[in-house]
């Protein structure tokens, strides 16, 4: 039942994404600009890690893509709520978990697709990284977008208006981005900033993907990153499903 319901909802929203191909490509623009205009600044700087500057930057850009993209996923559900689509689905016997999972798996598909485009562009710019590491990076992007999209849907169904939703998401994502070391490793900064960043869950994901990109798979970073990503996803999906059950009211 759950699998069928999820597949049904997933199919509906994936077709929706495929109808707006422009939006599908547009999402990758911001990280692409960072890659083009920010990436070259780093090539000769000592970043403290193993590997080239691309192996440090690209993992950060991948998670930035997920962070900014999936956090705003809730806008779609605000529109659907006003069209009555959310309630129309909630009066049917369909699984509440499937109403959430079908939607967030669509988001995950879209962002992993964009992540692939970004890595292809990075290869052209000079990135060299082992294939298993790159694939691990995509898995982290997928998990992160499932988590963030779930929370984003939950928030959108709670606040209900785009006027409240937009600023609320911005207020959360900006500090997350700055404190997780997406752009530059936090270890470069002063001690207090490095300590502070350990309270931001994305820090662990970024560290894990950076290890994967230099081919170091059995590391402490990888362990912590995996544990944090999985726990965060479980928590976010639980919260999201609860909100779909009550649809925010």
């Amino acid at each position: 039942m759950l699998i069928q319901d999820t597949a049904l909802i997933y199919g509906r929203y994936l077709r929706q994404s495929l109808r707006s191909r422009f939006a599908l490509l547009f999402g990758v623009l911001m990280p692409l600009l960072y890659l083009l205009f920010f990436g070259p600044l780093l090539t000769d700087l000592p970043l403290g890690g193993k590997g080239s500057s691309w192996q440090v930057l690209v993992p950060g850009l991948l998670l930035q893509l997920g962070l900014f993209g999936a956090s705003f996923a809730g806008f779609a559900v605000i529109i659907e709520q006003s069209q009555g689509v959310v309630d129309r689905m909630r009066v049917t016997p369909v699984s509440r978990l499937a109403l959430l999972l079908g939607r967030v798996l669509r988001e995950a598909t879209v962002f992993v697709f964009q992540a692939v485009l970004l890595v292809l562009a990075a290869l052209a710019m000079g990135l060299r990284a082992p294939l298993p590491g790159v694939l691990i990076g995509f898995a982290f992007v997928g998990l992160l977008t499932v988590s963030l999209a779930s929370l984003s849907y939950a928030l959108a169904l709670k606040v209900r208006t785009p006027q409240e939703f937009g600023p609320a998401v911005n207020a959360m994502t900006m500090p997350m981005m700055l404190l997780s070391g997406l752009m530059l490793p936090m270890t470069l900064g002063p001690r207090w900033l490095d300590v502070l960043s350990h309270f931001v869950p994305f820090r662990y994901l970024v560290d894990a993907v950076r290890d994967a990109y230099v081919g170091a798979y059995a590391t402490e970073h990888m362990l912590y990153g995996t544990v944090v990503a999985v726990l965060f996803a479980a928590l976010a999906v639980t919260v999201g499903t609860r909100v779909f059950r009550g649809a925010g009211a």
Partner: protein
Amino acid sequence: MPVISAAGLARTFPTKRGPVEAVRSVDLTVQEGEILGFLGPNGAGKTTTLRMLTTLLAPTGGAATVAGHDLATDPAGVRRACGYVAQSGGVDPQITVREELVTQGRLYRLPKARAVERALELAHDLGLTQLLDRKAGALSGGQRRRLDIAMALTHRPKVLFLDEPTTGLDPGSRADLWDLVRRLRDEQGTTVFLTTHYLDEADALADRLVIVDRGTVVAEGTPSALKLRHGGSIDATLQDTFLAITGRGPAPADAAPVAV
């Protein structure tokens, strides 16, 4: 055995300015095959009551059963037994009529082939056959409403809830919709629970009226019984009867003001 019965149904919303009692206590029963008109001024609690009876909103007090299923303990049973059309409808304007109807069948767990078949049946019954490949956003108001109702009838529900189904429709489409509601009751025995602000609609369509005000039932009965009791005569308009019951609008001419 009534098909809907509610006792003390209540819903309080917490807000920054303290709790708001959208529905204080609603008691009502609806018999099988009845067309019930659920009336009340704006903010009386009509939509909130409907959302509770369709499992969209958990009551904060009271209890109700729909088609023998308890709202609190068997919401899945209630969902299988009832169809609901919200004021805003519930279709994505970018999606075709056919896709929405088939998806709805699948949401009600019909196998794929059966869902496709059911979509064609519904389209035929509601005069949407020519429109199957049109996007929902390209339909006229009346066509949109018929699609919304087709979606709600997918699983042949015993009870159909319609929230202001004819708001914004032209007179022709309204008359069509009335015929459709009557046909559903006459041919399928469907119980129809509808809210409306159009009193001529309530008068023409409903077997019985329940009037709510400030979150509680203030009057109920057949349109003529209500006119006789509250409007002063069987020839009173339902408009005057409604105003007399809810106490809104100008007082009747012969009523002496108690205090100025």
